[in-house]
């Protein structure tokens, strides 16, 4: 019997609110929102999260894990603190999205699908994001959620990336200080 209560304790209210959306005898419906909840915590869903979500909902961890494989927005591996997902689907490609992606990757010195050496920025080509009239465009996924960036140029994107790097550095310093306070 598993005793982990990490999500249950840290997100008690959120979990309650999620479960209340669905009929009480249909708790399995809550699996997708709970996976998002776990993923926001550290940008991927861990083995322990899977087990705990299974316990909360009374379904097997295999069932939970199969959803992560099926749906592309769930990750079971850490990769990049920020995932920059550039749409290169047909309508965007007709408006220069592929060139945009290639140039952006060249400027960062990586290939599409790779993460920058500092581990912060992953660039990935993705399918249509329902913003086809505003190409080139991408979404940024992070622990804070998901944001759209439309009508982009490579320069815009690079300055956003610099901003993201500063944010991450700021958070690291803050985290460090919190750690020191806790120790001291």
């Amino acid at each position, binding site marked *: 019997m598993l005793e982990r209560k990490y999500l249950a304790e840290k997100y008690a209210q959120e979990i309650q609110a999620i479960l209340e*959306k*669905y*009929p009480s005898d*249909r*708790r*399995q*419906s*809550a*699996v*997708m*929102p709970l*996976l*998002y909840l776990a993923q926001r915590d550290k940008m991927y869903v861990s083995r322990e999260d899977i087990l705990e979500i299974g316990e909360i*909902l009374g*379904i097997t961890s295999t069932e939970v894990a*199969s*959803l992560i494989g*099926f*749906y*592309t*927005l*769930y990750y079971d591996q850490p990769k990049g603190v920020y995932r920059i997902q550039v749409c*290169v*689907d*047909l*309508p965007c*490609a*007709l*408006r220069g999205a*592929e*060139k945009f*992606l*290639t140039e952006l990757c060249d400027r960062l010195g990586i*290939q*599409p*699908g790779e993460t920058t050496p500092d581990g912060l920025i992953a660039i990935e*080509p993705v*399918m*249509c*994001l*329902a*913003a*086809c*009239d505003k190409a080139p465009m991408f*979404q940024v996924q992070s622990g804070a*959620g*998901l*944001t*759209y960036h439309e009508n982009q140029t490579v320069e815009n994107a690079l300055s956003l990336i610099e901003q993201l790097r500063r944010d991450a550095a700021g958070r690291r310093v803050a985290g460090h200080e919190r750690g020191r306070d806790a120790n001291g």
Partner: protein
Amino acid sequence: MAENEHVLLRHREIPDLDNLVVYREHNGFKAFEKAVTQMQPAEVTEEVKASGLRGRGGAGFPTGLKWSLIDAKSWPHYVVANADESEPGTFKDREIMEGNPYQFLEGVAICAYAIQAHAAYIYLRGEFWQIAVKLDGQIAAMEAAGLLGQNLFGADYSLKIFTHLGAGAYICGEESAMLESLEGKLGMPRLRPPFPPSFGLYGKPTVVNNVETLANVPPIIERGANWYRTNGTEKSPGTKIFSLSGCVNKPGNYELPLGTTFRHLIFECGGGIPEGRSIKAIMAAGASSSLITANDQALDTPMDYESVPSVGGQLGSASVIIIDDSISIPWLINKTVHFFRHESCGKCTPCREGTYWMSHLTERIVKRTAKTEDVALLYDVASQMRGKCLCALGEFSIEAVRSGIDRFRSDFDLTVGASVVSADQEKLTKDE
């Protein structure tokens, strides 16, 4: 219709329409109140039937008829709003939900009343996370204003609306896959029949309607079916949002009466083709479209559910992608086939294997490593899939392939032996 009068995209004229107070100042929730306080549920359905409204999610199924098919012997009933909007080239539901969300929510509420559902779910694609956060706030504002909850308008009717996020799977836009996903399972289509009005969410009678379909409902109830029919054609009444994209000067959403011609949309609204190039093909239903040869006859064709098939296309969700004469059709179908290979849920063999093989062949063709017979083989694989797939995704995947080869054959002759992609495109395809 008066030029520029929006029925759905009213936020373009009315600032802050996503604010409940503003929405109510513009007759918001009058239709819902009228339905609940003055009409029997069946009368609401009858009015929608009389309006001739057809589903905007792609199939054009008559909305009132769908509501009337709800099984009255099995309870509870549910409404599920389809906000998955994942067809490449479609971006209209997003604009409605961002700009005029309460009209959509009011439509959900009226539909729920008509089928006597007490719970409605809005299934949004996971990428619409920000929209879902806002909708949650708007739903809370409705609850605070007494527009959702118990005993609405003093009547014996209660309703709750919930959002639910998908997580990146195009197939979850297909209604039965969406219901599976909402139940917490893998989003794979169900064998049908039974259809959702008899066996839907949790096996209960369910209406699944597209966001745009539902946004049409409040004006129909408020202003009546006869008024609604003053726009559009006899068989395709009302206005429709056309998502215009691709090789066009002014891409965007245009709300026009059904039956407007392609020429009007592309040249009057969209400002024509950039850099003096000429139009080569039209995909009227996003990546799921066949390629319509853009000759004068096609350009003068009215965009409605009956006329588009007469030029070898489909209206679908009206995601009109414009292809100009600089675009190679093999490159294009390589794109669409990759999309469908990626999005095939894998449940049935013809689609899973067929999209896999097609993607290998189109890849070889654009990379110049194809043999002469590969084009015929590609056509053959596509034709073999016809009518054998469990859901429409499999059928969608072959539309551009077959029509592309049928109608733009000379583009393929060029590819056997000559590169049709630029260096960076080649690099990209390798990495995907």
